[in-house]
């Protein structure tokens, strides 16, 4: 029988995949997609907890996370486009003006 622990393991595996993507990839757009993956992994854990605990709290929290993530994606992609217009690149290695 599939229990809560199976969902938590899948969720943490997805989170670590996203985590490694954020750390190891250099393209800002891919980093952003991996961030979305991490948010979604947290959503899966919350829904599973809510299902096995029997309350509405986790479900409502996931609803708010999805709303905030949609707003965050719109703003983040607008920033990436503005950055690309100014610097002609989306590679994090070349966006190091604030370093030093």
């Amino acid at each position, binding site marked *: *029988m*599939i*229990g*809560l*622990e*199976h*969902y*938590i*393991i*899948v969720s943490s*595996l*997805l*989170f*670590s*995949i*996203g*985590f*490694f*993507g954020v*750390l*190891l*990839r*250099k*393209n800002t*757009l*891919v980093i*952003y*997609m*991996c961030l*979305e*993956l991490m948010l*979604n992994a947290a959503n*899966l854990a919350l*829904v599973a907890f*809510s*299902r*096995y*605990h*029997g*309350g*509405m709290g986790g*479900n*409502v929290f*996931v*609803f*708010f996370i*999805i*709303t*905030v*993530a*949609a*707003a*965050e*994606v*719109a703003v983040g*992609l*607008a*920033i990436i*486009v503005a950055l690309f217009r100014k610097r002609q690149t*989306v590679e994090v290695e070349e966006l190091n003006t604030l370093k030093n």
Partner: protein
Amino acid sequence: MTDVFFYIFSTAALAAGIGVVLSRNTVNGAMFLIGTFLSMAAMFVLLEAYFLAVIQVLVYAGAVMVLFLFIIMLLDVRESAAKKTSVYTWVASFIGLAILIVATVSVVSAESIKTKAAALPEPSGASLKPFGYELFTTYLLPMQVTGFLLLIAMIGVIALSKKLDTDGSAK
């Protein structure tokens, strides 16, 4: 039967997630991410959170990924040569992974988390009615704040994507 579906969809989600990280082409990565979101929606269905599964497909696999693909194609980024990742990044990522593994193992091995088949509560998020009730009673303030957040995000995106002159006035 649900066990089989769980294994199918969790494997699909993990495989597509690895595809997002490993694919050199950004468009392929976005397609893999859609696959992950759809498998997650299927897992929401298995958890009997039907409303969230629909929202996941509509908002994530629909709106958010369309926006991503639009920006990827608008920017038309060429794939640059892979640069070496610094040793600090590797150390940091493995420390982070170790912490995550310890946390997961300690949560999963806890006695209180083991579910008994008979003790599974009634699905609370299965229908829309409890959602609406909770959103407009217990979570009324967060609901209002989220509405304002969406408004602010919209204004922010319009301000960011407007071309400005050097003196800051709009063209």
